[in-house]
């Protein structure tokens, strides 16, 4: 059974679970949107909203991502399916690829919603070139996040004790992505007088992280989920 076909069926399975349970669309997305509203309400003094909008988008993404990841591995361990996967001798790399793919798809949906919300709620006006920058930034950042997230989730799915370390382990790793994405989005939104050209280097950084995490993840995932 070829690795890529297994990866695809794992991804399809995860997306189908999401489709059947609608957690993302009915739960996470509204939550994220509400997070944005709360930000708006809590921070809307002296009209700093436009300036911080990009940061908020990516923070909201982060929060939502944590929910989605926990969910993505909760379904595995809920009824002992992860053991079954291991015993089925499914190639860990395939599992990693599949779950990352599914996670990336869900994150993309989420980010589109969030960016849209931000544009509407925070009255951000975005230029054509800025839009182009955004269209590149979002997927690149997503790949990085999805891979780290899956890695983290695999760790979380393991022995109970471990998960206590997770936020501590994960968030520092994600911080660079968060910052890079925020800066790039700032340039795209031209918030705080940032220009689009300033944004591209950050996209480069994001790309580096994406590649890095894809590589690390494929290697490290197997040992991690494996007691």
């Amino acid at each position, binding site marked *: 059974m070829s690795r890529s076909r297994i990866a695809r069926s794992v991804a399809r399975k995860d997306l189908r679970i999401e489709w059947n349970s609608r957690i993302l669309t009915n739960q996470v997305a509204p939550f994220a949107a509400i997070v944005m*509203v709360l930000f*708006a*309400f809590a921070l*809307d*003094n002296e009209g700093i*909203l436009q300036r911080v909008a990009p940061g908020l988008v990516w923070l909201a993404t982060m929060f939502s991502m944590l929910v989605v990841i926990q969910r993505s591995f909760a379904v595995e361990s809920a009824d002992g399916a992860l053991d079954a996967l291991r015993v089925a001798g499914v190639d860990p790399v395939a599992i990693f690829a599949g779950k990352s793919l599914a996670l990336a798809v869900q994150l993309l949906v989420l980010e589109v919603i969030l960016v849209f919300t931000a544009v509407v*709620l925070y*009255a951000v006006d975005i230029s054509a070139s800025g839009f182009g920058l955004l269209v590149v930034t979002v997927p690149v950042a997503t790949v990085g996040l999805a891979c780290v997230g899956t890695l983290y989730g695999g760790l979380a799915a393991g022995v109970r004790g471990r998960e206590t370390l997770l936020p501590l382990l994960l968030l520092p790793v994600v911080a660079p992505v968060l910052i890079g994405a925020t800066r790039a989005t700032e340039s795209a939104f031209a918030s705080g007088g940032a220009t689009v050209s300033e944004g591209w280097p950050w996209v480069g950084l994001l790309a580096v992280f994406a590649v890095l995490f894809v590589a690390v993840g494929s290697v490290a995932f197997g040992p991690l989920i494996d007691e």
Partner: protein
Amino acid sequence: MTPRRGTGTPATARLGALVLALLVALALFGLVFSGPDRDQGESVRIMYVHVPSIWVAYIAFIVTAVCSAAYLSKRNRSLSWDRVAGASAEIGVLFVAVSLVTGSLWGRLSWGTYWVWDARLTSTAFLFITYVGYLAVRRLGGTQRQRARRSAVLALLAILEIPLVHFSVRLWRSLHQEATVATGGTDVHMDGLMLFSLFLGLVAFTALYVWLVLHRQRGLTLEDTVADRGLDAAISARRSEAVG
């Protein structure tokens, strides 16, 4: 219940005609007879929709709360209380939406932006969310009595949002120096005709509300009976599962 096409009766038909007439009258007074406002200009005409609709929404939610209380208190808990509550809430959400939309359009005209994170606007948005949540809870499933009980309790919680919205302006103002704009009421200078149009609007929308609720609650009754029919079929199918 005599079999009947649709959810109408001669009575509701007549009421419908009245509603139509009132709306036409409102359009005439709102757009033609009443003049432009001194500082609001022509845009003031939005008020004749914006304000009555939110007030009718208040009425709708109060009706929901009252019916819910009635349902919970009554010895013989009749589901019709619950259906009226549900219908009223649905129409109420509709009117809040109208008020939100007209309000933000008006905002675009008078303060140049569709939305500001001001106390009243935000609290109105929350009012909207609250009752969308209420409607969602009604669809959670379970038996009809479970639905009725659960949503009745929630309705009694949700009604607390209304004073919050109504007094939000004064509350926030009095506490915190922040320019709250959406209190046009005080700075719109009203001449008699305007006032009349405003209350004509109130009457028209209230009549419209009553008409809609009558139909909707009949619709809900039909939905419940249909659900019962479906259950009958499911039950006989289930019985036939028996092997022995």
